[in-house]
């Protein structure tokens, strides 16, 4: 059954780096898994713990927040804040029995189309191996 499992991955992508990198990956004809659903944010620092938790609560199997390289944040330190929030959200997830490894913070620049595709592939494979989000089967239908 696990072979049939196609994870749903939510990627919160900073407009100034990862989102552009995803675009770059497309221009370079680099493939990455269709499992990754991108949500563009003005800065990775805009992503709050609640956004991450809601993604899991609504059935996402994995989430990652993609921000600029350290020192390169368009808003100075949004990516550093995002990394702290990701670490905090992982602890919260563990406290309700959802593996913290389902959530990651990654850093890349706008020119790294290859790296974007590589990250999307690596995280999709990791989550595929982990199996579905433990609450996926009991989740209420979204209206």
């Amino acid at each position: 059954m696990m072979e049939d499992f196609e994870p749903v991955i939510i990627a919160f992508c900073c407009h100034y780096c990862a989102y552009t990198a995803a675009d770059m990956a497309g221009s370079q004809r680099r493939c990455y898994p269709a499992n990754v659903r991108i949500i563009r944010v003005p800065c990775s620092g805009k992503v709050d713990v609640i956004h991450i938790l809601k993604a899991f609560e609504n059935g996402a199997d994995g989430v990652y927040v993609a921000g600029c390289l350290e020192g390169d944040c368009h808003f100075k330190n949004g990516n550093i804040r995002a990394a702290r929030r990701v670490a905090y959200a992982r602890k919260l997830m563990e406290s309700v029995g959802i593996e913290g490894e389902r959530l990651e913070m990654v850093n890349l620049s706008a020119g790294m189309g290859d790296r974007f595709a590589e990250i999307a592939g690596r995280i999709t494979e990791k989550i595929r191996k982990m199996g579905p989000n433990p609450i996926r089967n009991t989740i209420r239908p979204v209206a």
Partner: protein
Amino acid sequence: MITAERKPLEEIIEYIRPFQKILLIGCNECVTVCSAGGRKEVGVLSSLLQMSFLKQGKNLQIREHTLERQCDPEYVEELVSMVDGVDAILSMACGCGVQEICRRFKNKPVFPAVNTKFMGASERQGVWAERCQGCGNCLLGVTGGICPIARCSKQLMNGPCGGSTNGKCEISPDVDCAWQLIWDRLKALGMEDRYEEIIPAKDWRPGRAAGPRKIIREDLAE
């Protein structure tokens, strides 16, 4: 502000386990400022509870609402239409807010979701420290604006004690000696004379020592 911290999730889960429909209420005042029980924290707790119960196969119904102020009856009245349909109320306000909800809704179980800590101030982003113990007779005018009751571990009226080393308290190198701070400030202000005045033993009756306190402003009270 009154500071608070969210209770451990296991404790909150045990409170609400017997119930199906929960009203989770936050407060827009102090607990919002100290990131313990505002709208954002209500959302996070709601999501965590939801996931925790979903994992056990239970579909909890949580309604979220954040009041302007939970310690004032005018605002608590807003909840009337929401309370009927729920089995229990979970409050993220300080102890004052929780008790106000209990007073208003006598036939509903009400549970606290935070531990109320102290009256404090923000030292920096994400850090709050105790500054006042509500002793009822403010001493700040004679101690250079630094409170020896809230900030000296021994609540000394005339300090420092022998445990003060390099400006730190003997209980921890992270705790400033309040009396060192008082001396430094009086000196900077050229008010060293104040330090020479012996502060007499404090009358604790205006504080909690004479029982629960109440303020009545006769011009305002109805």
